[in-house]
């Protein structure tokens, strides 16, 4: 198919550029094909993403995402620093889920070197990763409401996220880029009083998620705007390498924490919610009012992607509670030599991030510095399906679809 490239854009005369009132004849006003740049500065592109839209009136004929505005070449840094110095760079990949990034990279290196992580450290890691998953989903739900024009849910979501920020700040002093989970365990042990503050937060959060359902999820206008829009079939999702909530919303019950368990996730009991057709009832932990999928929703559409994240927040709360019960006193970090020599060999490990499967290919060559660190960002793959999904949709649907895929540019551009 004729791909749209920047070269063609330069060639395209900007219809309105040389508008001089006298010379313009009426025919230039005809709404034939128009090239519109949504981004890189645009209120609803979640960061520095530029989507070139070829539109005919309100209907978008083709949408081509252009990325690379936030490219810092993190992988080059990976090849020049020791693994525990690379941890702060992993914070800045998916800057809304720094704990999960740290955890995945640490597990990859630990499996490569063969380090035994103490029991308490593993539990703290799962506790922190699931809390960060809740925080990340809160941001994506709030931002998605904003894309649809509902301003209020964003504020509620950030009000809840503030509580999680306080918990993280108490644990490791940072609010966004924690570098708390490192190779061999966690940098500092939990402060006393953390576990009851965490339990109190979970008591506070659970009814609030139900409140959002009333405010946004079951709102008729929201369902009309999101239901049946940007439908991705299971085959397309797998073909385009979609992972995480986007894959599950298309009906694929696949979650690395259950299908390829790591870090002791197999000992925790939780369900994997998937996109359900109209009237379906997603699995919910006990004590939570049973949500039901409203009319007009199709498996794999924007609404399902949004709602899978809501249900996952319920299960993450359930997981954090189990992790809190499982906490035993003990070492918080394994004893490691000063400069950790990486064995000659390679490993490709993927962890379940809030946005999908974050993969690390780490190749060691005997020196303390890895010879190659490849980062497979889930948003990078999730975003690649935009041009396939946004064909012949309305202009107002493009932010809806991109918002439901929930991308973070730090992870796309690396």
């Amino acid at each position: 198919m004729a791909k749209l490239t920047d070269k063609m854009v330069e060639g395209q005369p900007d219809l309105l550029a040389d508008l001089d009132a006298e010379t313009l004849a009426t025919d230039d006003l005809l709404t034939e094909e128009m090239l519109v740049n949504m981004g890189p500065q645009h209120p609803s592109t979640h960061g520095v993403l530029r989507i070139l839209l070829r539109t005919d009136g309100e209907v978008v004929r083709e949408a081509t995402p252009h990325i690379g505005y936030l490219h810092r070449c993190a992988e080059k840094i990976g090849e020049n620093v020791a693994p525990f110095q690379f941890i702060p760079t992993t914070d800045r990949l998916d800057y809304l889920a720094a704990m999960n990034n740290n955890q995945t990279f640490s597990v990859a290196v630990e499996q490569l070197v063969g380090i035994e992580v103490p029991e308490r450290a593993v539990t703290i890691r799962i506790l922190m990763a699931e809390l960060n998953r809740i925080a990340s989903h809160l941001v994506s739900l709030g931002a998605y409401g904003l894309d649809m024009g509902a301003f209020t849910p964003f504020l509620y979501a950030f009000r809840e996220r503030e509580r999680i920020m306080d918990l993280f700040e108490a644990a490791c002093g940072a609010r966004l880029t924690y570098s708390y989970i490192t190779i061999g365990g966690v940098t500092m042990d939990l402060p006393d009083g953390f576990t009851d503050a965490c339990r109190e937060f979970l008591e506070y959060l659970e009814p609030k998620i139900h409140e959002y359902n009333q405010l946004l999820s079951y709102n008729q206008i929201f369902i009309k705007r999101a239901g049946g829009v940007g439908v991705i079939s299971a085959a397309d999702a797998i073909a385009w390498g979609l992972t995480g909530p986007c894959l599950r919303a298309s009906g694929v019950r696949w979650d690395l924490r259950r299908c390829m368990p790591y870090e002791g996730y197999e000992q925790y009991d939780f369900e994997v919610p998937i996109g359900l057709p109209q009237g379906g009832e997603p699995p919910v932990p006990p004590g939570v009012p049973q949500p039901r999928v409203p009319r007009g929703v199709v498996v794999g559409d924007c609404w399902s992607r949004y709602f899978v994240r809501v249900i996952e927040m319920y299960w993450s709360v359930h997981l954090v509670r189990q992790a809190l019960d499982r906490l035993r006193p003990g070492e918080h970090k394994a004893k490691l030599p000063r400069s950790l020599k990486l064995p000659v060999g390679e490993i490709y490990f993927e962890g379940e991030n809030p946005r999908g499967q974050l993969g690390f290919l780490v190749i060691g060559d005997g020196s303390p510095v890895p010879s190659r660190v490849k980062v497979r960002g889930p948003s990078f793959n999730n975003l690649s399906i935009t041009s396939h999904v946004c064909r012949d949709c309305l202009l107002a649907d493009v932010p809806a679809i991109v918002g439901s895929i929930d991308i973070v540019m730090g992870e796309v551009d690396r």
Partner: protein
Amino acid sequence: MTAEEITAVLEQELADAIAGADSGGMHPHVWVTAVRLHDVMQFLRDDSRLQFNMLRCVSGVDGPASNEIDVVYDLLSMQPAVSELWRARHAFAVKVRLDRANPHVPSVADLWPTADWHEREAYDLFGIVFDGHPDSIKDHDGLHPQRILCPDDWVGYPLRKDYVFPDEYHGIPGKLEAVPPGPG
């Protein structure tokens, strides 16, 4: 199936395409010749026993010591299930060794559309040209997949070991000490 069985099936079916195998270790993979890569990938995806339906990652690896560039394809086979959990059958990797001066390898974007962006990134950062890539353009570097992360007129491939960061780009100084020639 275990890594050894997969290698055995591959050697039995496409013996000439396989250049080596390392099914032990944590990252079981098989070496494939660049020319026959597309057939191997086609077989891996469509064979009833293997069914690798998800291409997880395409990564370029630069090894200046042996003067070659590798391309690593990480594949995963997911066992679909109607309502309960999908099962992970097996994960496997395919590696191709290319000449560092003129790395060419056929594109697999037609088998897994996810490869489209991964291959563009591999070209952008390593200079590996994927022949037959759907988003190819012809410019000063000849026919190649379009760059995805760096600007289109960027010179050089950043992740190569021998890459030297440019002094300036459109007047923006690259290095502190190298004072760029005054613009204009």
